[in-house]
């Protein structure tokens, strides 16, 4: 058990390419932290620097109270699960899991090793496979063996490097909950790298979003979702992603491509340009739209409605996604294109994704009346990408609540563990 502290960590490769540009992060004891970002953002490099497989160019890494920059990986007492599992193909499952114990040379007797491996195997339901070779296992089983090797010894922290990316969607969901359950039960500090924002949102106590080697925001999943600090975080978190539309500020009104809406207080205060006008980027999450015909009378008046030509609809059972193409404003087109590239996008047509209730009768080619809650819309500065509607107090409150929840669930897990041990 230990905390992990990163102070201004920098990684420059031999050719001068800066993969990580000064990341500082405080990971508390027992916390589950996710490093997330699109490919090439430096998240794996950061993890490999923590575990010691990459040299740290500058900055300090503390595990517990000890500075670990120059320690060899084996002296850091960390356990890591690799993306391709890195199982030893010549050893059985039992020996694979026992491998870290055998390296300690005489610290454990043969009986102790057997007991520890069997406990780990039981946790991961691998008892029936202990004598098999990795080559004969399925992807999910290999993944569990890799986790068994990590949990069998008392590591100070677990590090996961995209552990689920080689599994199919169903298995991924199962393993995700399995990892969450295991982490809660063991209460071990965990750092988890992924490019999948669903994994990031569901697993993490806190999520660190990286972009081009720079830390964008560290917050609870809800904090990131509701109070993103900038355009990048807002666009990265959420599925389907947030809609970004140009919004022209004119006094107290924001002109959107499909209608007008009152400008949020914070935006009004920031003011327009010399003539009081200014083009901004407005971000609206798909679920903040609704089919106006399905709303009760009272609610309808709280928002703005507009007519939209629905191009394509996707009915998913729980939701109905409607796609509404729109013309973008050349002033912000460049910002949005760049953002799209950063998010590994394909630079396709500009369209709104609108998540409607599955009862909605809107179909392909319809002209629908869509309702929008302006209070939920976010407004971003197109140059800096900064979220003008960011509410620091609300963000702090969300994270404080999250921290309370985390501690409570850890305690519950420990209590259950103690109860199970007592009975």
């Amino acid at each position, binding site marked *: 058990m230990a905390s992990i502290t990163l102070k201004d960590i920098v990684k420059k490769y031999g050719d001068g390419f800066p993969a990580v540009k000064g990341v500082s992060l405080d990971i508390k004891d027992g916390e589950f932290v996710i490093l997330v970002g699109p490919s090439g953002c430096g998240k794996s490099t950061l993890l490999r620097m923590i575990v010691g497989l990459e040299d740290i160019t500058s900055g300090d890494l503390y595990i517990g109270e000890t500075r670990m920059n120059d320690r060899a990986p084996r002296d850091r007492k960390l356990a890591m699960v690799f993306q391709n599992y890195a199982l030893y193909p*010549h050893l059985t499952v039992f020996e694979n899991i026992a491998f870290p114990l055998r390296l300690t040379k005489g610290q454990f007797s043969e009986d102790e090793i057997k007991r520890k491996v069997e406990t780990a195997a039981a946790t991961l339901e691998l008892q029936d496979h202990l004598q098999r070779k990795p080559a004969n296992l399925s992807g999910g089983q290999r993944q569990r063996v890799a986790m068994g090797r990590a949990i069998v010894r008392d590591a100070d922290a677990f590090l996961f490097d995209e552990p689920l990316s080689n599994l199919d969607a169903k298995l991924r969901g199962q393993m995700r909950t399995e990892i969450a359950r295991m982490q809660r039960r063991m209460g071990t500090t965990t750092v988890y790298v992924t490019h999948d924002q669903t994994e990031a949102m569901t697993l993490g106590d806190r999520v660190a979003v990286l972009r081009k080697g720079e830390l964008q925001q560290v917050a609870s999943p809800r904090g990131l979702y509701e109070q993103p600090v900038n355009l990048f975080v807002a666009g990265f978190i959420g599925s389907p992603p947030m809609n970004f539309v140009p919004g022209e500020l004119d006094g107290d009104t924001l002109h959107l491509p499909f209608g007008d809406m009152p400008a949020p207080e914070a935006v009004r205060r920031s003011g327009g340009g010399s003539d009081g006008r200014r083009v901004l980027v407005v971000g609206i999450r798909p679920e903040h739209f609704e089919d106006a015909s399905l709303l009760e009378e009272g609610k309808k008046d709280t928002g703005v409605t507009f007519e939209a030509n629905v191009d394509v609809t996707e009915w998913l059972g729980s939701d109905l996604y409607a796609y509404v193409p729109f013309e973008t404003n050349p002033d912000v087109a460049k910002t949005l294109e760049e953002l799209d590239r950063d998010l590994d996008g394909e630079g396709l047509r500009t369209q709104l994704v609108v998540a409607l209730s599955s009862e909605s009768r809107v179909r392909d080619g319809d002209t629908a009346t869509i309702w929008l809650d302006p209070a939920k819309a976010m407004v971003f500065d197109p140059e800096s990408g900064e979220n003008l509607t960011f509410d620091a107090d609300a963000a702090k409150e969300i994270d404080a609540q999250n921290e309370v929840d985390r501690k409570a669930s850890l305690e519950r897990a420990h209590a259950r563990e103690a109860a199970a041990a007592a009975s």
Partner: protein
Amino acid sequence: MMTTRQRVAWGVILVLVMVWALFPVVSIFATSFKLPSELNIGTFWPKTWTTTNYEQILGPDGSARDLFLPALRNSIGISLISTAVAVVLATIAAYAIARLDFPGKRLVLTTALGVSIFPVISIVTPLFNVWRNIGLYDTWLGLIIPYLSLTLPISIWTLAAFFRQIPWELEQAAQVDGATSWQAFRKAIVPLAAPGVFTTALIAFFIAWNDFVYGISLTSTSAARPVPAALAFFTGASQFEEPTGAISAAAVVVTIPVVILVLLFQRQIVSGLTQGAVKG
């Protein structure tokens, strides 16, 4: 599954290849049991089976014994030493080539390739002069060094290819699991590389074992002369008798180690081809 026609076709091809490859071997085997006087009667199999030829090269009173046995000793010794040295050096070199990024990496590989395709015959004469001047002529070392030039390049290339297949993560995982670099190499990499090393050793051994040009040019006595060269010095019992029988017998004897080696390492060679899947 194959259709019957495909199966028949493959069977025919297989038989043709087997005949092509094994006919000379069987022929030499048959000849080695013929009486010297019956060599030219034109039958494939000996009329009377005899071990005269083997007695001649191995027996206590054999006329070619003093030529053959020292040569056999030289061949085994020189081939084993050059194989061992080549494999050890090539393992280290190939590991570095596969794992490290260092300036001159390509240079090492291209030089190795260049050396291995350099025609042996063109270097023999200068080497002969150099060796005589520095006293390496007709010594074991005098053959081991040129043999290394033949065995090292191919060993480096095969092993480098083999090491590249072993996922680096295995070594890193071992290090994170608490292994030192040396332990990670020994416990995670060596067991996986062993089949590759065996295969490479076998190839290197055969190259040294089969060499003729260096063997005949850089030796003059039985102090270092290997078997392929010694065979050329066999003489018949009289001027009118060909030493074919004795040469065939010697050829059969030197083929035996090769067969034994292949049988011994067969498992490793096959597993070297099938093992290695990590992700799958």
